[in-house]
């Protein structure tokens, strides 16, 4: 039977919580993320590269260059001091550089995939190598940037000591494994790029939110209950700040990304070209660590794992991390297990 009294009281409770929430949020301090100290060492157009500040000498002579997906900000890798993969890798003794792709505007609509991979990424790698007087550096790429790093490594294996990618999409053959993969088969990407110039962040966020339609409402149930816990509330707000800070994408880069990679799966099929060069995955002979999240609902596991049989590396390893697409960086296990394991793997190959 229905307990109407309890239900009505619950509705009262909700409105009380909303009112309390207003007062609490009004008095919250500034929400800060990516607070680990770093310095700007390189910039080209809107793209920047930072070097994390070390207080002790690095245990590894060869520096590490990290790049995040272009469609999101890299700040999630350093969300808060006790949930910072970057800080953890620093504490483990690595010398870390990180790329900041910036906020493309309409003026950047013609930036192509070649510009990002063979231009900015290549120039950043050269800068780091020159600054440390080494021939090769360690490269880490997350999600879309993992795919870009793989393409780069296939063209320039001589510049990389190792390659580590996290939750990166490689194989787009099976359209039924993910609704985003399916949609890209039908979407008219040419009219998107031609009409919008830069692909709006709202369009991309809207597409991602449809992977789980209730998520944007359901999360507030928990938030309502944490109004009297400022630490928990701040943790939530930090994640929200990162999620809401989404850059637009260059239309030309997006056009090739969707057509050549998502739709035609050219990289896995062996006929992908970049800047007039054929990209042969067998040329990727660099030691490779492939991290994937077992409960990833954005990039299917099979899409990430499929690369292992295609590359030429003899030293290659899969790392199955229990968690979701973002949890791999911000979860507690990331600090305890993933960070130390990746650091050790990299240092063993320095």
């Amino acid at each position, binding site marked *: 039977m229905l307990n109407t009294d309890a239900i*009505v009281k619950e509705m009262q409770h909700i409105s009380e919580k*909303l009112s309390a929430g207003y007062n609490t949020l009004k008095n919250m301090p500034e929400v800060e993320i990516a607070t680990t100290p770093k310095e700007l060492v*390189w910039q080209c157009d809107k793209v920047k590269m930072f070097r994390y500040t070390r207080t002790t000498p690095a245990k590894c002579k060869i520096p590490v260059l990290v790049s995040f997906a272009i469609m999101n900000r890299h700040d999630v890798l350093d969300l808060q001091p006790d949930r910072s993969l970057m800080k953890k890798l620093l504490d483990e003794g690595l010398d870390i550089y990180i790329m900041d792709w910036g906020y493309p505007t309409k003026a950047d609509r013609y930036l192509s995939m070649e510009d990002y991979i063979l231009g900015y990424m290549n120039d950043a790698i050269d*800068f780091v190598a020159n600054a440390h007087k080494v021939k090769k550096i360690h490269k880490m790429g997350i999600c879309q940037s993992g795919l870009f790093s793989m393409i780069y490594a296939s063209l320039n294996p001589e510049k990389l000591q190792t390659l580590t990618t996290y939750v990166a999409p490689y194989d787009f053959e099976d359209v039924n494994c993910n609704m985003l993969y399916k*949609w890209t088969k039908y979407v008219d990407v040419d009219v998107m790029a031609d009409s919008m110039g830069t692909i709006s962040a709202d369009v991309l966020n809207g597409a991602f939110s449809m992977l789980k339609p209730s998520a944007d409402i359901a999360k*507030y149930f928990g938030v309502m209950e944490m109004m009297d816990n*400022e630490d928990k509330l701040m943790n939530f707000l930090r994640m929200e700040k990162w999620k809401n800070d989404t850059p637009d994408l260059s239309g030309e880069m997006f056009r090739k990304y969707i057509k050549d990679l998502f739709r035609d799966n050219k990289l896995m099929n062996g006929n992908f070209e970049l800047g007039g060069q054929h990209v042969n995955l067998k040329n990727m002979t660099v030691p490779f660590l492939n991290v994937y999240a077992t409960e990833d609902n954005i990039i299917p596991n099979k899409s990430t794992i499929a690369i292992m049989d295609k590359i030429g590396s003899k030293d290659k390893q899969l790392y199955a991390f229990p968690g979701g697409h973002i949890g791999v960086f911000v979860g507690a296990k990331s600090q305890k297990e993933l960070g130390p394991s990746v650091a050790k793997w990299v240092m063993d190959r320095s």
Partner: protein
Amino acid sequence: MATTKNTPVDFINEMVENQTKMVNNLVENTKTIAKEMPFVKEMVDKGQQAYHEIVNTTKEMMNDTTAKLNNVAEEAKKTNSESNNFFMQWLENSMNGSKQMFTYPMTNNFSKMKMPEMGSNPTEFMNNMTAWMTNMNTQMQNMYSQMQNQMQMNNWMNNNPMTNPNNPMLQMMNNINMQNSMQEGVNNWNKYTKPYYDMMTSLNGDWAKYMPNITTAESFKGMHTMTESIGKFYEMWSPMFKQMQEGSFNMDTYKTMMKPEMMKDFMDKFFNFMPSETKQQMEQMNAAIIDSMKQMSTMGTNGYNSFKTQMNGFKNMNPNMGMGAYTNVWDMYTQLKDSMGAMVSPLTKLMEENSSVQDMTTWSNLSDKMMEMNLKNTQLQHMMYNAGAQAMEEMAESMAQKIQSGESIDSIIKMYQEYLTKGDAHFTSLFESDEYSKVMTEVSSLQMHIKMEMDKQMEKLFFSKMPIATRTEMDEVYKNIYDLKKMVRTMEKMLGVKNPAETVVEKVEKVTKTATAKKATPAPAAKKVATPAAKVVAKKAAPVAAKKTAKKK
């Protein structure tokens, strides 16, 4: 607040009492939130007073009612099939309305009417042109009148069996006091909470400015949206609470009492669909565009008639009037030149590039695309409504099973969360389907095509005459800049010239905060990153800074 009696009247009294308490609670909370805005307090107080008066009147009315629920249920079952077909009817009405609005231009598109060709007989040509223009004008006027009629007929609320005054269920409900009382109770609740939520939404902008930053403002907005959604969910289910309390709730009750229009409203809020009022405004705007095209063609016709009059005047001119051969010839020539100038200008404008007809063709194609987009968007929404209704029905089955097994339901949030879980399963299954994917991408593509064409037309008609750079011009500039930058970088690499962009800039320091910090200590003012101009100056320091970096290692 448990009652010892379990009669329908006791249940209603209990509900009314609880709702009154909830309203009072809402009032207090609103006052707390809106304490910076005195007029809100006054408005809320008046609303609360009005609500109490309504509640007291309703209570008196309910105490005099008799139970005739069996008759209500029987009559409701007859119209059950109509309510189940609600969404199908909505879809049909929307589709038909859109089609009828644009049927005329599609089947009798004026741009397909062939213009007369210039033959050897100019007079015959002009007569044919006049007839063609007049015909076009008449077609446009007829099309516009038909569209206006269809817009008035297309009000789907008139076709909605649930709101049609001829609906026997509504008639029966009006005759049965008990059901009417229940409905009054829910309506009264809606009367107060809707303005409350509307006020919260409309003043959201004002409240946001009291938030310290956009993240907290967006979070509060999200909390409010969630609260509103639960409120709508509560409204949908509250008519069925009595049966649920009595333990008689089943799928028949659900199908009888679940109001499809409330579910549609709930879904619209959930997915931020365009409200019906806004949709009507969009349709009126489309009609206004077509109307302006009609007016342009009328102006064109008038101009052409004027041109024809002048041509006829020229035809009737007698060049042999007056004395003085040379003066007469000069005068004649001047007159001829002036007449030709006045005569030829409208013809030149009409014939030179045929731009008016081109514009009309473009607008006609645009209206075709808009119609197609409306139809496909309606189809998309219909698919989503169906998925949402299926999820709600599954939830109702789950509720019925729990009630029949004697399980106590004491949380609206748990009900709502159960709906969200089932909804996710249905919606993701829909979104992954080929049918949805195709329609969704077609709608998206049409939207962008329309946007592109509209932008081009706006540039052509308005912006090109203003002293501002248009988007097309800026895109050209961006392309040139991009190509030049690429060329320069290639040359720099060939010449081995160091990229002036590669500099070492001042440190940007921030205070590292721990996770347990209660209040943020103000961070020391971070040194600003050098501006591009400063970077160029700073390039000389680059080799020194690079050495420093190497030393640190």
